[in-house]
């Protein structure tokens, strides 16, 4: 689980198009990464955007942007945990 958090941070910060992220994720899986970590990475990659927060703040204000990103981050951890159990 602790590594999942690391993956969450990684996914939150990076801004990678989906059509590059999925092949990368599947390559990581094949080379031995766990489903939990990959799910954490993919989920945060898509839902949390640290790089685009300034833009989000411009449209939604500071409070909304920060709450949404934080909730998405926590939710991604939950998703990762469940995915780790299910897969």
């Amino acid at each position, binding site marked *: 689980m602790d590594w999942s958090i690391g993956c969450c941070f990684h996914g939150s910060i990076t801004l990678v198009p989906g059509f*590059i992220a999925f092949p990368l994720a*599947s390559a990581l899986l094949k080379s031995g990464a766990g*489903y939990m970590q990959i799910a954490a990475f993919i989920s945060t990659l898509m839902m949390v955007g640290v790089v685009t927060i300034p833009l989000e703040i411009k449209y*939604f*204000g500071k409070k909304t942007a920060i*709450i949404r990103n934080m909730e998405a981050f926590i939710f991604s951890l939950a998703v990762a945990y469940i995915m780790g159990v299910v897969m």
Partner: protein
Amino acid sequence: MDKIIKVIKRYRFFIILLVINTIILIVKPDIGLKSLQLTKSNALEMLSILPPVFILLGLLDVWVKRETMIKFMGEKSGIIGVLLAFLLGSAAAGPLYAAFPVAAVLLKKGSKFSNVLIMIGAWSTTKIPLLLFEASSMGIKFMITRFILNIFGIAIIAYTVEKLLSKREIDKIYNNAASME
């Protein structure tokens, strides 16, 4: 002089990243090159996605009347509004940052705040084109499990964000969207 400072301030993140990237390129050429390649693919994606999004937004702004938007996605739209918001977000292609201008137009036209948040949530994670891609590279079970979990996540996030904001804060966001062009 003031003008130069303004430009530097505006692009400060860009300048900082450029410096960091240059340093990485000198110290670790292979990593630096990879990061440049990613920058290139992101830039190309942005250039190919944003113009069509803005054209469609312009059309949405002109063609869809405020009354129609309020009826289908407004305060009293109920489950139809929720489903429409979800479909609108899922049918989209492109990165999350392209969703913010769309959200602004929806707000401007009188869409309910939680519906806009659902659209943002769906846009971020249940995009149909990307789901197909996910199924092919990660397996169908992975995709479906994540999809089902995400439906709950989108709803929870939209509901709680709306509840955590005061009426005044939401009004401010509406006014901000209305003043944007």
